[in-house]
């Protein structure tokens, strides 16, 4: 047995010692309505382990000052730690250069940066943006704003009844007017892992850059942006066991250098007069104002934590959880799983016959089980599957099989109330 960050690796199918892992997440000790918290809303936001929480406190108590500015000790320390965090994130997604890693406030911010910096510059009248039915609103609305302004249009890749993208239709949608493909790596509503490598290859054959929404992918699997060859990759810190208010946009340097800044302000300039401003080099060109320094450094600690446990172990355990939950929920009469793609991350959307998801959510909460109910900011997905909303259990590596059992027992109770 090897101790790594307090988590102990052991022989067996699932290599995580969950007791040790869970002991590092203080919030998991909570009781809700007198019952142990069963936190299955990780796709919305995940929890932070003690070493990551400690990093925040260490920064604020011994290292904090504004970065890239003053010459005093604290400013230099904070700057060094901030840039060290950038390199950790670079390694996390295997970006070629650290300047290709831009700190944002989250996935939404990253996508808006691309919509503004790339979209407003390179999309013109009659051009097309290809998106998919599986997109979160955050990868739809920014593009609607661009196409409305430019007189361009959005083309949408359809999905089949399992929640898988129609690749043939996707290939047909690509044409000389296509200026960008925006696709979610993993669907937040259904859990589908999209065939992004193939989609990127097809787009690049036509010279079209691809933006991946990686918010739901990075907590579950090893992501290698060079191997994927994506042009942009956006993700959030708070869905990968880091804090809110921080995220990353990866962009190929060749694009970032051509793009216009998203926000104007301090730190993104080289020189300013009232006649003209020369912009700073990337990534600083896109990091105007004082960035969430503490959150960025803490996210770096979350990366260390994930490296310590090993993304391969996380992926294996997440897969076990999904397989077990799928099997158990499938056994329940009157419960239908929505999203049955061949390739799925640990997200389980379901509908209970005759019971609205909000009632499911309220009654599960009574059992201490936290799930998300609603449209998951993905109304086109809901419409495609002809449901107003779904109940969604989403797992993280600290979840256990017995928590899946608690979910299933909770669903049975809901059915009993509504019998």
């Amino acid at each position: 047995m090897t101790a790594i960050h307090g988590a102990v690796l052991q022989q067996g199918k699932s290599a995580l010692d969950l007791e040790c892992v869970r002991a590092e997440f203080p919030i998991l000790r909570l009781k809700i309505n007198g019952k142990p918290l069963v936190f299955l809303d990780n796709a919305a936001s995940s929890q932070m382990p003690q070493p990551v929480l400690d990093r925040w406190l260490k920064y604020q108590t011994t290292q904090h000052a504004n970065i890239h500015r003053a010459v005093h000790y604290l400013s230099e320390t904070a700057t060094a730690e901030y840039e060290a965090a950038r390199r950790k994130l670079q390694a996390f997604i295997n970006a070629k250069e650290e300047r290709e890693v831009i700190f944002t406030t989250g996935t939404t911010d990253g996508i808006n940066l691309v919509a503004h910096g790339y979209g407003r510059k390179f999309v013109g009248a009659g051009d097309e943006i290809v998106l998919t039915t599986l997109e979160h609103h955050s990868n739809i609305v920014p593009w609607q704003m661009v196409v409305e302004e430019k007189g361009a249009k959005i083309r949408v890749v359809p999905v089949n009844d399992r929640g898988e993208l129609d690749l043939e239709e996707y290939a047909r949608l690509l044409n000389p007017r296509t200026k960008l493909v925006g696709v979610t790596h993993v669907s937040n509503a259904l859990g589908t892992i999209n065939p992004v490598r193939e989609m990127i290859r097809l787009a690049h054959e036509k010279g079209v850059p691809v933006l991946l929404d990686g918010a739901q992918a990075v907590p579950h699997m090893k992501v290698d942006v060079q191997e994927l060859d994506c042009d942009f990759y956006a993700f959030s810190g708070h869905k990968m066991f880091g804090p809110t208010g921080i995220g990353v946009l990866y962009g190929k340097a060749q694009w970032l250098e051509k793009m216009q800044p998203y926000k104007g302000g301090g730190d993104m300039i080289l020189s300013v007069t009232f006649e003209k401003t020369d912009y700073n080099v990337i990534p600083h060109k896109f990091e105007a104002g004082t960035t969430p320094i503490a959150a960025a450094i803490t996210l770096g600690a979350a990366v260390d934590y994930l490296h310590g446990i090993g993304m391969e172990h996380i992926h294996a355990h997440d897969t076990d959880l999904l397989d077990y939950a799928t099997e158990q929920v499938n056994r329940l009469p009157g419960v239908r799983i929505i999203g049955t793609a061949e390739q799925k991350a640990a997200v389980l959307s379901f509908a209970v016959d005759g019971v609205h998801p909000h009632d499911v959510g309220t009654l599960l909460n009574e059992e201490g089980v936290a799930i998300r109910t609603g449209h998951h900011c993905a109304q086109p997905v809901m419409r495609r599957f002809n449901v107003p909303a779904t109940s969604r259990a989403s797992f993280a590596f600290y979840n256990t099989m017995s928590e899946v059992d608690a979910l299933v027992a909770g669903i049975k109770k809901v059915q009993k109330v509504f019998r």
Partner: protein
Amino acid sequence: MVATKQLYQEVILDHNRKPRNWGALADATHKAEGHNPLCGDHISLTMKLRDDTVDAINVHGESCAICKASASMMTTTVRGRTRQDAEQLVREFRDMAIGKLDHEKQPHHLGRLTVFAGVRDLPTRVKCAILPWHTLHAAFNSVASTTTEAEADPMHAPMGNA
């Protein structure tokens, strides 16, 4: 949780299973749509007023049990009542749901509708219960469409005087 148990009691579950006055009136004089965009609840209300009295009222739509039962019980309660009485109930129901009216201590005309009092302890569900009443208020005032958000948010703004 006591509030949850109180809420999902038989009368509410019964109205959810068999909602009364469910459907659309062909000869409606007033109608309104109600939406709760956060959870996707949608209520469509048609009503026939005669001499300022609710002669007939129907609702239908897609919603959770709390919203559906609230809509169903609303129709059975306000039918035959004057507009003024019904609007009084709209205000009292809203006040009860947001915890402004203590139905055990203060006077009211809510009758069996007090089964919904438990929503005041479930902030995320208050709007589910209020939506049908909000929609009724909109129908009286011939507002084609209403929502539980923004200025019309019952959690933040008064519903106005009718």
